[in-house]
């Protein structure tokens, strides 16, 4: 039995644990780390089962090339040669920007860095993006504009220090379980006030002082109205506003248009609820906002995020323990993938590609010329471009857009149209069904690297077993591709060397090295080797100098319910499964818990449609129809359906609408119009 300390591959909480390996190099268990800052010897059910899928017989074990429509096993050389020549071919026919590189929030920082380096330095395109587009791109943009840094302002242990926690749009006890439990402990042990603004009656709502069930998509008027009350009642923090912020007058003008009575009507709640929330939040000494995809995944996602930041600044709740604007990042390394610049507009550390000096710096560091300065595609627009035929080739590492992008039929059409698709993954997926080349990668258990948790903590991922069969770590595959494409600058002896390069070009990671993060990790910004890391952002000064109030006005969601499609359909995740289910559905206990696709429906709606609990039913939108089991529960509000997107046999994203936020290009996963019927 061997034990290896590593970081959980599921959510952004970033618990560390030991992987247990038997004499046959098989993972046989998990042991929590009792010393880890977040885990403290605890784990959620996904963490406890995180070893299970690694040795699953479905693992991709050899490179595959599609020949005459059939996937054939080939050697690595043949597969990688084809990848390079096809990508080059696509680019020479359609221009550099006719290829798209999709990185992955599941892979390590080093791998994300290399993917973005590959796209920019070798293939000379800024067409690099990853699934943060689909979850927190609005956060990155919204918080960058208001606060100057697109990450969680505080740390997880601040959850235990707040006097009032305002939770809107995450289901923490299921999606960031150990963060959720810190909130529960603070509420039950210290009597902290808890405000939950969520349509669903999530677990935290049961313990909340106030639970507001507004209409999906009315976040902006709701938040504006809270600020309206705070200003009207003189509860704002004037000192903070005058010393630390700018553009306050603008905010005042906009929120003045949202008196509680008016907002209440838009939001489908009472004016009193708004007033109560405003008073409770403003009264707290340390009040914290915790938000997640319920805020971001809207066509007005950026506006929602800005409103959250506005509220925090208005009440002086930024830059101190137990406060802040805290987006919870969904995946284990979605924070890191953003930090590493797996985004079209920035290099690592959010250094803008449009800035010639920045480009010069990277040209020098990477020993290349003419790094591209134009921003062309995001993941979401790339799919649209592929469907239109202007994008020719795509290299997808560790993502499953067929399951996770909106409007599956549209994605299918796009993938089918591509001249060339490479999918690099650990399991076959329905996306790899459309691939011309499939490259078998290793899981987190078979490689070294780092993940950055939601609290900006860069932590080690350590190899517990040898790569299974012929699979290889993503970083090695990327380096080989770069070399085959004729680039000399991507040769590393170890992942630690890659981190050293990252540190040298990325100021916020400047002081990070494997030596320093050996045990507990470091929270960025960590500019130099002596810097202790940063628990709380914007302490004396905002990252952008002054905090900027950026008010927004209400824009309704794109597709509202009507007579034909009377329900609001919202989508997301469940506790036991992760995203497209490739890992969790191959884990015995997790799979057993939720084996079938389902929809959460209120008891009233179910009764009206004569749908029995647990029976099969159909959910349809203008995009298609899906058969799911009815999970009749008072978690769901009347008129609103909730569906997780884990099931390929009942894909929620067959139903969702491909409508994007104009700035962030994030899809509106949280609102579309649907109808239901009983099966048979």
């Amino acid at each position, binding site marked *: 039995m061997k034990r290896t300390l590593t970081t959980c591959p599921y959510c952004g909480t970033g618990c560390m644990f030991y992987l247990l390996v038997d004499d046959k190099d098989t993972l046989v268990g998990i042991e929590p780390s009792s010393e*880890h800052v977040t885990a403290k010897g605890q784990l959620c059910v996904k963490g406890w089962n995180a070893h299970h899928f690694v040795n699953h017989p479905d693992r991709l074990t050899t490179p595959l090339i599609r020949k005459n429509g059939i996937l054939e096993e080939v050697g690595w050389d043949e597969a990688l040669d084809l990848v390079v020549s096809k990508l080059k071919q696509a680019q020479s026919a359609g221009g550099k920007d006719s290829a798209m590189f999709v990185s992955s929030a599941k892979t390590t920082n080093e791998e994300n860095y290399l993917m973005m380096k590959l796209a920019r330095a070798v293939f000379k395109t800024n067409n690099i993006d990853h699934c943060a587009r689909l979850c927190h791109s609005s956060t990155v943009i919204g918080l960058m504009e208001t606060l100057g840094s697109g990450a969680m302002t505080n740390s997880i242990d601040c959850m235990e220090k707040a006097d009032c926690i305002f939770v809107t749009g995450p289901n923490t006890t299921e999606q960031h379980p150990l963060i959720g439990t810190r909130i529960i402990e603070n509420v039950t042990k210290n009597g902290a006030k808890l405000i939950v603004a969520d349509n669903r009656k999530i677990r935290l709502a049961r313990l909340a002082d106030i639970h507001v069930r507004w209409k999906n998509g009315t976040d902006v008027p709701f938040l504006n109205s809270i600020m309206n009350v705070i200003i009207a009642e003189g509860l704002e923090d004037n000192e903070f506003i005058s010393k630390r912020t700018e553009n306050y007058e603008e905010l005042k003008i906009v929120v003045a248009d949202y008196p509680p009575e008016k907002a209440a009507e838009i939001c489908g709640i009472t004016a009193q609820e708004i007033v109560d929330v405003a008073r409770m939040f403003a009264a707290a000494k340390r009040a914290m906002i915790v938000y997640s995809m319920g805020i971001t995944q809207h066509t007005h996602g950026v506006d929602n995020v800005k409103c959250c930041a506005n509220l925090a600044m208005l009440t002086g709740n930024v830059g101190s323990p137990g406060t802040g604007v805290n987006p919870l990042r969904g995946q284990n390394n979605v924070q890191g993938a953003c930090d590493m610049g797996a985004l079209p507009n920035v290099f690592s550390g959010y250094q803008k590609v449009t800035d010639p000096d920045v480009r010069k710096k990277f040209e020098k560091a990477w020993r290349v010329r003419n790094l591209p300065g134009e921003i062309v595609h995001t993941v979401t627009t790339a799919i649209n471009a592929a469907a239109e035929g202007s994008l020719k080739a795509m290299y997808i590492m560790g993502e499953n857009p067929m399951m996770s992008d909106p409007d599956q039929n549209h994605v299918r059409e796009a993938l089918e149209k591509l001249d060339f698709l490479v999918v690099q993954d650990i399991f076959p997926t329905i996306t790899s069904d459309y691939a011309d080349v499939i490259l078998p990668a290793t899981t987190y258990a078979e490689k070294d690297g780092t993940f950055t948790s939601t609290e900006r903590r860069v932590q080690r991922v350590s190899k517990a077993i040898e790569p299974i069969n012929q699979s290889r770590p993503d970083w090695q595959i990327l380096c080989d591709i770069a070399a085959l494409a004729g680039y000399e600058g991507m040769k590393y002896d170890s992942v630690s060397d890659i981190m050293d390069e990252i540190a040298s070009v990325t100021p916020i990671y400047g002081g990070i090295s494997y030596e320093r993060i050996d045990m507990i990790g470091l929270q960025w910004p960590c500019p130099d080797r002596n810097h202790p890391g940063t628990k709380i952002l914007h302490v004396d000064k905002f990252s952008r100098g002054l905090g900027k109030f950026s008010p927004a006005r209400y824009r309704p969601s794109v597709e509202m319910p009507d007579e034909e499609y009377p329900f609001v359909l919202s989508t997301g995740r469940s506790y036991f499964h992760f995203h497209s289910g490739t890992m969790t559905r191959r884990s015995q206990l997790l799979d057993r818990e939720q084996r079938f696709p389902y929809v959460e429906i209120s008891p009233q709606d179910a009764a009206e449609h004569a749908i029995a609990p647990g029976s099969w039913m159909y959910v349809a939108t203008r995009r298609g129809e899906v058969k799911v089991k009815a999970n009749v529960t008072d978690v769901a509000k009347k008129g609103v359906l909730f569906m997780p997107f884990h099931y390929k046999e009942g894909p929620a994203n067959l139903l969702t609408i491909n409508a994007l936020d104009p700035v962030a290009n994030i899809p509106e996963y949280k609102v579309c119009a649907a109808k239901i019927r009983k099966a048979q």
Partner: protein
Amino acid sequence: MKVLVLTEQKLMEFLASARTAYDVRVPVSLHDGTRVIGRLGEGPLAIKGGAINQKITSIFFPHMETVLKCSNGGFESPEPAPKPMLVVGFTKQDADCLEFIDRFYNDKFRDDVYFNKRDNAVIVCVSGRCGANGKLLKVSGDNCDMELICDGQDYIVRAYTDVGKSLIEDIGSTEIVPEETLEQIEKESDQLCVEGLDLLNAASKLLLEDKVPDEFWQSISDRCIACTSCNLACPTCTCFDVFDRTNGCGIDRWRIWDSCQLDGFMREASGHNPMGQELIRTRRRIHHKLAADVTRWGHITCYQCGRCDNVCPTGIGIMSVCKEMVEKYG
């Protein structure tokens, strides 16, 4: 009367020499300081520091293990390991837990996969002045083969069974010191508070008399996120799930720790689920140890090892729940 005393260094030497006959497992400190029962040399020896967080019975009932190999239509059961284990690091409570699950796995059908490891294993308890934060660990008495009673620095060695005694003989000549210290530790150990047990007994009585209403369980289960940690850490939790997995040359049948806090634990093919409500599952977690097992085995099967209270991220381990219960209904 004199007693045998070992310095940590001498103890190390003894354990190293025991390796010829035994697969020796001891508390070690891992990379980040987490203490586990591991192999000698897996990390620095970490006997002091109190109970190990890990489910102590995982030594014999691990997180995941094969129970059967199937190949070419034939079946093959796992064999006992070539060497029996010698395990150091049980507290008195841990040894009580082990004693119970020994009975459990032997009841009616003998679980040979468990006994493959458990048979002939030597259990060495640790007690005395080496608990967490200098607390005194209760002296075990004879619920193990051998005991190391720490005087704050060195270990007074006591053997209870024949194996234990012969192992002590193997140690040969060592310093012998007067036994006053031991007497003193034992006296203090006897006085260690029994509050915990009183609390469990009071809770047990309430449960057996059916005096705890559903509202109570609902209010506790509102705080349970079904992380399964309480079950997975508890030394007397024995439930497992079974699954088959193909490997290169055949199919292995595995068992893996399961948890009654999961909705699927009892869900049947028909969808019928006797434990299909949160409050029923939360009740089960406590009721099983404090009431159901009293009826079945004649005693409660929680030995106050403290693990579930440590590991529950929302603070509803058995002691906290019992405290709330007894305050409300006692």
